[in-house]
């Protein structure tokens, strides 16, 4: 149990998918303008990523094995796209409210490189099924945390008196860099 907790904490804080691994930067910059949208994106990503890491573990272990390892990226992409499509239809039917919140973010997840990155990292780290699930969920929770924090900062930035050449994306990238530095403080939290 402690191992799983360590994986969860490790992926959320120490090896944060955005701040330390530099994955998923596109939605990180794209949907962090407002707090509500970033929460929606984070929730949708968490759902898909947990499912995707579990399913890609199964595919990698039982279908691909070692001799078909070169199909990993290809098959993971197909599976992720399938999961996203299924999730979209499922949520649409079961919870129209949730669909209205997540609706436009769900298709965006297909192209989120963090969602492909985490299953591949899972393979690299030779995680077992449950570890993969925790790694996926932790990564997504870390993504959500950083996205929400960043959105909160950006909402403040809107009102800040930023020098003209730095306005918009430039100051956002500078802020992201500083955030990444701050997250380095977590290194060493878990050995």
């Amino acid at each position, binding site marked *: 149990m402690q191992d799983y907790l360590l994986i969860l904490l490790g992926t959320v804080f120490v090896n944060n998918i955005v701040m330390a691994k530099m994955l998923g930067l596109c939605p990180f910059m794209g949907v962090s303008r407002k707090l509500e949208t970033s929460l929606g994106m984070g929730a949708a990503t968490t759902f898909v990523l947990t499912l995707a890491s579990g399913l890609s573990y199964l*595919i990698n272990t039982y279908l691909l094995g070692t001799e078909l390892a070169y199909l990993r990226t290809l098959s993971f992409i*197909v599976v992720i796209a399938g999961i996203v499509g299924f999730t979209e*239809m499922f949520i*649409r039917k079961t919870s129209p409210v949730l669909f209205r919140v997540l609706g436009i973010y769900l298709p965006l997840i297909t192209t989120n490189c963090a969602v492909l990155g985490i299953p591949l990292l899972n393979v690299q780290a030779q995680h077992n099924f449950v570890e993969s699930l925790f790694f996926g969920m932790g990564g997504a929770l870390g993504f959500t945390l950083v996205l929400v924090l960043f959105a909160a900062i950006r909402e403040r930035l809107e009102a800040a008196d930023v020098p003209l050449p730095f306005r918009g994306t430039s100051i956002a990238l500078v802020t992201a860099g500083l955030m990444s530095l701050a997250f380095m403080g977590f290194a060493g939290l878990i050995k």
Partner: protein
Amino acid sequence: MLAAILVMSGIALVLGGILGWAAIRFRVEEDPLVEKIDAILPQTQCGQCGYPGCKPYAEAIAKGEADINRCPPGGEDGVKRLAELLGVEPKPLDEGLTHKPKSVAVIDENLCIGCTLCIQACPVDAIVGAAKQMHTVIPELCTGCELCVAPCPVDCIHMEVIKEDVSSWKWRYPIISLKRAA
């Protein structure tokens, strides 16, 4: 090689089957009107109507939140077909949406009676002249706001389009603000 093809097509088949099943199983009964309106819209997803895409705009029309004349790519023809479908009067495209070429006011000096009404209307003082004297527009100062066209009692002011050349060409503003995100 064969195993790879089998595995990939197997995954694709299973996923395709699940998605196809889900599409039927989780079908959502939508307002059929939305589908019909959506079919008429040009599907350019340009966002010029103020909605994120054609489907949200179609939904807004069906709900009665949006007017039918907010789709420049669909043109007059599209508006006419929407009006037929919804049983309302067709109306011209929303003027604020169609991009007007930059133009300046020109006074037909033979017709001008020197009433000074246009001088009073001009916000940038681009019209010179005095009472009972012929007026004229200084093209360099004219912003093309058309405020002087209406007050003229003899209709001697018309707008002339400026041809684009090296000195008058500008980058277009690329940003189209979306009214609502979800």
